[in-house]
């Protein structure tokens, strides 16, 4: 497992580069590396914007014959009260595009989002190796 503290702008870059490198070593295609890095970029930026600090954890996962990369983005920020709303294209409480969460789900194979409002947000995704 590799973990990366997310506190500021620059950490977003560090996290996505770390993940891309790991994905490359594990034999993910260039395209998959880019999709993983982009997904992490979106989630890590949200941590900086909405929760001030958090973590990105990268682990390898096996399920049956499948092998993949699992990424957990977690924070102890305000969390999200209405997950369905936050997962809607274009919904943003910031001044941004509101495509980060719904878009990230489309970049990955499995996606899970859980929040205890007031206690934080945890987004988990898996990208399987084809």
């Amino acid at each position, binding site marked *: 497992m590799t973990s990366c503290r997310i506190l500021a702008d620059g950490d977003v870059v560090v996290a996505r580069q770390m993940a891309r490198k790991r994905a490359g070593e594990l034999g993910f295609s260039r*395209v998959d590396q880019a999709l993983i890095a982009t997904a992490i970029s979106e989630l890590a930026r949200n941590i900086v914007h909405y929760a001030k600090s958090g973590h990105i954890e990268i682990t390898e996962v096996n399920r049956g014959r499948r092998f993949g990369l699992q990424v957990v983005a977690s924070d102890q920020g305000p969390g999200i009260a209405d997950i369905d709303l936050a997962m809607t294209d274009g919904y943003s409480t910031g001044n941004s595009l509101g*495509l980060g969460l719904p*878009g990230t789900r489309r970049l990955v194979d499995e996606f899970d989002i859980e929040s205890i409002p007031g206690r934080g947000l945890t987004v988990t995704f898996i990208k399987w190796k084809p």
Partner: protein
Amino acid sequence: MNRRVPILRQGQTLIASVKDAVSDQEMRDLQARLLSDVVNTGASGAIIYVSALDVLDSFGSRMLSDIAGAIRLRGARTVIVGIQPEMALSMVLLGLSMGLVETALDLDAGLEILGHGVRL
């Protein structure tokens, strides 16, 4: 870590060559500098060369559109050059497009759009 994106000048065109990984702050810095360089040099066009960029996410493409929009207000044009296929796939999946911002595959094509290159 705050490496500035280099901005070169070639005739009437400014060329900003974005390196592999650029933080949000470095993107904002590029926006400010490119805009002031357009104003100060009277350049008629700007090229933002993104082929080495590692990720083009919702913030990044929004920034590129914003930069192009701001430069347009100063009467100059912007071309985004070198979007890679895997970046384009992320963009399409995220629901993004370059919309009204001009794009080109490579520097030659970008320069031609801005009216410098040789035509066929």
